[in-house]
């Protein structure tokens, strides 16, 4: 059964269409990934889900209730972990969770119990009386999560929860997401890191420029580019001519160049490699390394949109 249904969702700001006719169904109990580069419309979609901004068109149904401006009761089922660290710097960890817990409707002994539980869950029990300004980035992110889960929401929305933190904290957060899901929460996880989405999410939707590009399980998405392979060539200072000439080769599906790495998606890497290397050599581009790889979500995105996930 779908716990969230998004139908023909549109958000327009003057002439800019931030979300352009998105249709999605999210099943209860799954970890649903929303993948796309910065500015794709992920956060705008999340904001509309949480009732923070009003859609220009379409509707959102959460657990059978249609979202409406005046209706806030459905928000009792939601827990939002925003992309930014949304905490009061001059209240200690415990006070932050308490305040948001009260807004969620918790009080008295239950509130105290849930605050303790949330702190234990994110591994900050020994920091309950400490101020967030004394925390590392990873600890702040964990407190950010604690403030969203103390009321045991049915749906947890996590908007890029691992941005800018160390690998250890990131792994802790990913593990927390799995735990929350195993406890019965549906998780909507947005990110532009395809590695996280791939390991975490049962189903994924890829968005770009406000549009839903493709939706399905990781395997289903990879089937879109099943026969494609990726050639990665490390080159210093590729010029515009080289890229255009490579794009023009018959059989090349997509080309991207950033950080001295030229990525070419093609069904026939072996047969086209010679032509590609000839072009680079002719244009006096210095080759440093070369690699062939299996398609991943990055490949899917590059194939379907012509650009990379990360700017």
């Amino acid at each position, binding site marked *: 059964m779908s716990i969230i249904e998004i139908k023909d969702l549109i958000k327009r*700001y003057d002439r800019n269409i931030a979300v352009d006719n998105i249709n999605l169904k999210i099943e209860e109990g799954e970890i649903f990934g929303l993948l796309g580069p910065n500015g794709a419309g992920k956060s705008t979609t999340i*904001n509309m889900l*949480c*009732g*923070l*901004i*009003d859609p220009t068109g379409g509707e959102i149904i959460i657990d059978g209730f249609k979202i409406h401006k005046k209706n*806030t*009761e459905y*928000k*009792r089922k*939601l*827990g*939002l972990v*925003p*992309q*930014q*660290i*949304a*905490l*009061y710097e*001059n*209240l200690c960890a415990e006070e932050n969770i308490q*305040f*948001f817990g*009260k*807004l*969620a*409707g918790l009080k008295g002994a239950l509130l105290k119990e849930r605050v303790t539980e949330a702190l234990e869950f994110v591994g900050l029990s020994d920091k309950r009386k400490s101020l967030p300004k004394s925390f590392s980035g990873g600890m702040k992110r964990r407190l950010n999560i604690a*403030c*969203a889960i103390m009321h045991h929401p049915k749906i947890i*929305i996590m908007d890029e929860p691992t941005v800018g933190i160390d690998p250890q904290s990131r792994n802790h957060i990913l593990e927390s997401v799995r735990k929350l899901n195993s406890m019965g929460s549906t998780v909507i996880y947005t990110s532009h890191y395809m590695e996280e989405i791939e390991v975490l999410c049962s189903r994924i939707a890829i968005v770009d420029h406000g549009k839903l590009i493709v939706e399905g399980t990781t395997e289903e998405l990879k089937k879109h580019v099943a026969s494609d392979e990726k050639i990665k060539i490390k080159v210093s200072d590729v010029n515009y001519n080289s890229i255009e000439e490579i794009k023009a080769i018959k059989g090349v599906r997509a080309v991207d160049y950033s950080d001295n790495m030229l990525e070419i998606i093609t069904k026939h890497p072996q047969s086209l490699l010679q032509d590609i290397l000839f072009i680079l050599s002719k244009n006096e581009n210095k080759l440093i390394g070369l690699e062939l790889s299996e398609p991943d979500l990055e490949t899917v995105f590059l194939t379907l949109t012509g650009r990379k996930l990360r700017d």
Partner: protein
Amino acid sequence: MNVINIALNKFKRTLQNKVSFILLIAMPVFMIFIMGYALKPAFQTNTTIKKIPPSVNFTNTELVISKSYSEYLPQSNNAEEMQKLANQQKSYGNTFTILKLDLQSPLKKLSSFQYFAASMLLFFLLNSGIGIGNNIINERSDKIYMRINSFPVKKSEYLLGQVLGGMLTSILQAIAVILFSTLLFGVNWGNNFIGIAVTLLLMILISSSLGVLFSSIVNSEKALSTGLCIVLWFISFMSGGFSPVPALEPVGKLTFYRWGFDSLAIFMTGGTFKAAASELTFLAIFIVILWTAALAFFNWRSSNE
């Protein structure tokens, strides 16, 4: 409950910033001391002389009063002034020089400390709106507002909580300033505490509406603080809040600061609600206008963020 939770949260965070909180009370008290002491001589003598021309019908002492004195003369002072003139007339006939009171004559019963206690309290209460506005901007930019909105909290509850939290601080500030000014400088606030409280409450409402309005228009705390500061300083200066400026009197009369100040002065000098009716009415109307604008802008901003 959401309103109370948000209000108490804001109030608690204000109290936790001990330095700011002390300044909130210390600054107005300090300014009362400086201004009250420095301008004490100006409140003590009325030296302007005016000669009444013989053509004036001097038997009509009320007409003389209206021609000679500022129209701000409270009703309670008229009888006293008429008696004085009647006595002068007996001694000197219809043509004589009389003292013309300076433009502060309606407030001549206020000492310099009383004057500046009222004006500084109003000035700092009006500035408290900057705190409310900055808090809203801060929570918007830090995405705390977004987080709060993801809970079952209506926009109206959020706004009311913010305003109430700010008002709690302002009320505490007002009580502290009144107490300290009474104890340290012997300022007499009169007996009409309900009148004083109503006036201060109205001014706090004006201040919070300005904070909410500006927070919906500008994007940064700096822009809000600068903009609102300029407006409030200008209005306070025009209204004679820092020092009586006779030349600006006609314009100063039209400001909400002046209505609040006159209302306070009336209650401090033993006046009644009836005497302050026009000032309180103007303030109430102004509050309705400001809050209508503030709510409209807040709603527009939060729907399109």
